[in-house]
């Protein structure tokens, strides 16, 4: 381990002696502390945090992402090209130790820079929050400067529902002597079942049952045992975030709808009703009275549609319940931890490329990989459409089906790999006050650093170990 840390120390010294560290520190300070002081917000707590956190954390990720690729490519490729590696590798240190030492050096440098810039962002947030009106400061403290866990209603098993209706319908049609087109019938029935489950007709109601989750139940149990370290969930007001659409195509923009909500444990006296005037097509949050869940952490919400048009709640974003799980500070640190996981992966990519390519080529190749990763939206839209070159307008069939049959599986694989990394969105979570759990951070570490980074590291170390170090030199 001493040898690995020696290489790590060398990477640090190089970063300081070549002034890379200070240049990056100044750039980060300018971009995430100085510039945001000039940013205008809409005067709301949500607007302020959304702008500040999104901008600053994106700037940190982008700036350190590119510098990580550059540094990781340079630290190995330049050592090989300028022949210092010839002197190092003839010492009793394995090539894998050199590689790992450099990786740890780059990642630890990033950790220091992420920590410094994160502290700057945190201080900036506190400073800007003090300028908000008192009402907005309250929202900020309750909804954003917290770490809120969220829970969604348990979705019905649509496949089972569709299958049951489909069987019934096929029997009916077969009895009538009509042979149905099963694919078409399944499509129609799926749409019908979705409509029945997601829409609330005028004068009817829809029940949302939300399991608040194992962590919530754990907190409940801790409280019952009077543990001091438990975040208190009893007596805590929960927040509901809803988004619905109106079935009225002629509804004016910004039109509001009367919504009636009943919350509490069914068939018990612990029930309360709320009336809210809410606009459609946007996320809206309101508070629920405390302690309206049952002993198993189950919350039941009934929505009554008092309007004369049907309202639709999306399956993914229709309704979500939040409760405070942790503090903003710890959440912020975990968020930065996920960003650091991304940077660790980039360090692996850069070092892997420089293990067998010259510095400029390695830098170009690894930055290209980064850009392709950022452009994953193109892959997903192609996969959604089922074609790369589009559909023939007349036949509605893919223009190049043979080509699609080869490329689409590759796209799917690539997207699956990219999503292993992109599934984590600490910037979005932090700016909306969502909790980033330790479990989520651990999963990010496992998926991004160990799995993805490990694949690149294994490839890089294998290539570096096989490389003839005296075959590549530029200064002799």
């Amino acid at each position, binding site marked *: 381990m*001493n*040898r690995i840390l*020696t290489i790590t*120390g*060398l990477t640090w*010294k*190089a970063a300081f*002696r*070549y002034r890379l560290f200070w240049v990056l520190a100044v750039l980060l300070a300018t971009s995430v502390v100085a510039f945001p002081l000039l940013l205008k917000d809409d005067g709301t707590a949500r607007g302020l945090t959304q702008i500040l956190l999104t901008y600053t954390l994106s700037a940190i990720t982008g700036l350190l992402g590119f510098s990580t690729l550059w540094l990781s490519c340079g630290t190995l490729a330049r050592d090989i090209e*300028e*022949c*210092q590696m*010839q*002197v*190092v*590798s*003839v*010492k*009793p*240190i*394995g090539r894998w130790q050199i590689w790992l030492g450099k990786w740890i050096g780059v990642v630890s440098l990033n950790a220091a820079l992420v920590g410094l810039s994160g502290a700057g962002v945190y201080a900036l947030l506190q400073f800007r929050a003090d300028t908000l009106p008192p009402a907005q400061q309250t929202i900020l403290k309750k909804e954003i400067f917290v770490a809120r866990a969220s829970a969604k209603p348990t979705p019905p098993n649509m496949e089972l529902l569709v299958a049951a209706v489909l069987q019934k319908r096929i029997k009916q049609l077969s009895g009538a002597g009509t042979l149905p087109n099963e694919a078409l019938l399944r499509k129609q029935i799926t749409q019908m079942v979705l409509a029945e489950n997601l829409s609330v007709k005028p004068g009817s109601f829809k029940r949302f049952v939300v399991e608040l989750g194992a962590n919530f139940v754990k907190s409940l149990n801790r409280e019952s045992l009077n543990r001091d370290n438990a975040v208190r969930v009893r007596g805590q007001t929960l927040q509901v975030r809803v988004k619905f659409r109106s079935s009225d195509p002629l509804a004016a923009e910004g039109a509001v709808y009367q919504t009636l909500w009943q919350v509490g444990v069914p068939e018990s006296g612990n029930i309360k009703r709320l009336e809210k005037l809410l606009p459609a097509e946007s996320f809206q949050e309101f508070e629920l009275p405390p302690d309206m869940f049952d002993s198993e952490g189950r919350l039941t919400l009934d929505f009554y549609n008092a309007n004369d048009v049907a309202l639709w709640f999306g399956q993914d974003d229709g309704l979500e319940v939040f409760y405070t799980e942790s503090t903003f500070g710890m959440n912020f640190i975990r968020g930065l931890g996920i960003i650091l996981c991304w940077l660790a992966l980039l360090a692996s990519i850069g070092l892997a490329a420089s293990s067998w390519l010259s510095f400029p080529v390695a830098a170009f190749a690894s930055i290209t990989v980064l850009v392709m990763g950022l452009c994953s939206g193109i892959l997903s839209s192609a996969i959604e459409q089922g074609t790369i070159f589009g559909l023939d307008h007349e036949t509605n069939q893919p223009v190049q089906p043979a080509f699609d049959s080869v490329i689409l599986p590759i796209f799917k694989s690539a997207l699956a790999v990219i999503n292993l990394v992109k599934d984590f969105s600490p910037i979005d979570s932090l700016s909306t006050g969502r909790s980033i759990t330790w479990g989520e951070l651990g999963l990010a570490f496992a998926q991004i650093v160990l799995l993805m980074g490990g694949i690149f590291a294994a490839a890089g170390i294998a290539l570096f170990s096989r490389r*003839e*170090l*005296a*075959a590549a030199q530029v*200064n*002799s």
Partner: protein
Amino acid sequence: MTDTHPQTAAKSSEVIIAVRGLTKVFKDFWGRPKARAVDNVDFEVRRGEVFGLLGPNGSGKSTTVKMLLGLLYPTRGHIEVFGHSPRHVATKARIGYLPEESYLYRFLDCHETLDFFGNLFDLSPSERKSRNEQLLEMVGLSQIRTRVVGEFSKGMQRRIGLAQALINDPDLVILDEPTSGLDPIGCREVKDLIVTLAKRGKTVILSSHLLADVEDVCDHVVIYYGGKIQADGSLNDLLTNHDAIRITSPPLRAETMQKVLETIRQDVAADKVEIDNPRQNLESYFLDVVRKARENAAETSGATSGNRVAAYLRGDSDAPSWGRPPVCRFQEPLAPRSLTDSPSAPEPIQKVDQAKLQSLVRNTDPSVPVAPPPATTAPAVDLTKANVAPMWGRPPVCRYQEPLAPRSLTDSPPAPDPVQKLDQSKLQALVRNTDPSVPVAPPPASTAPTVNLNKANEKLASLLNKPK
């Protein structure tokens, strides 16, 4: 193969490096052969040997070194270093390597450089500190330890490079052009160090195209050309001329000289005898001048010289300074041994190895090959003091006084030069300086005119007959 070098006391039969059928073909991007840098090379290096890889630029010696270190991989053939593959990590703890250029980190200073490499050898902090101090002192960089390597001259970079190669007290030291970029003092010090290391049983591989460096320190050489070994053997075997002998002595009285000449003429034709004053070589003369200048000089902003070899490299605490090895086989006997020695005073005590003398006497017939003296006779000579020229079958310093024509690789051992001429002024100088208290004046370099030997003898006789 005979081993009569003074440094080979520590030499053993243990094979440190074994190379068999080594071939390296560099290929282009498409895998097509581009250049055959090393072609079917075999050699062995034994413990305690100073092994020279000689050859012109591009002959394959550096490629061989890099394959020995695992920096290049052989296309064919087999290499064992300490019984393992060159890529065996643990084996590298026993190797020190000085590359042909300074491949050090330019942003580290001297101390940090040595500390970094000491860490790679897992040396304890106290050991690193101690060795750093000794090495920096040894290579003359202790006064500028906080200057970064990037600011160094080439010679200073070579010095710190040499220090890093020795931080682990290696059993095998591989030096690629170690004197490249060094001033004459630095060159001398490096060669002294090599001898010191060899005396301790360390194995040294020296790759160089500087023939004098290799000749001065190596026991065994291989000569490369075109990727192939063209000659392989001990320097003794390769360079000794068994058809002539040289006797070196302090200035003699005229009567003694006359007797000696007469005795020799009884067995050897007059035109086969040559008499001259040995000259010290330019290196020795230069070192003496610098020594004198240093005695009065102010501080230097560069590297210093004349420092002690690091104690852990000497293996004892009372070894001579870096610049004065315990055994200086490559030094001119009349020349100063170190910067602190007297520059020209001959040693008063002369000892002759009787066995060697016997062997020389027995082999007066040029048709009979000279039997190499047995290795066990070597200790009989006081090697630090002996002034008898053929210590190990050849003069200690050959390059400025070897009377024979240089050999090519294809030549048979050359016959002695048939034309023997005596320089008149030399002869007079020889005769005039019979008084040992009077220093011998070096002959003027421009005095080329020669005389017939018979005339010289007449002149000598007339000089001797002059009344004093």
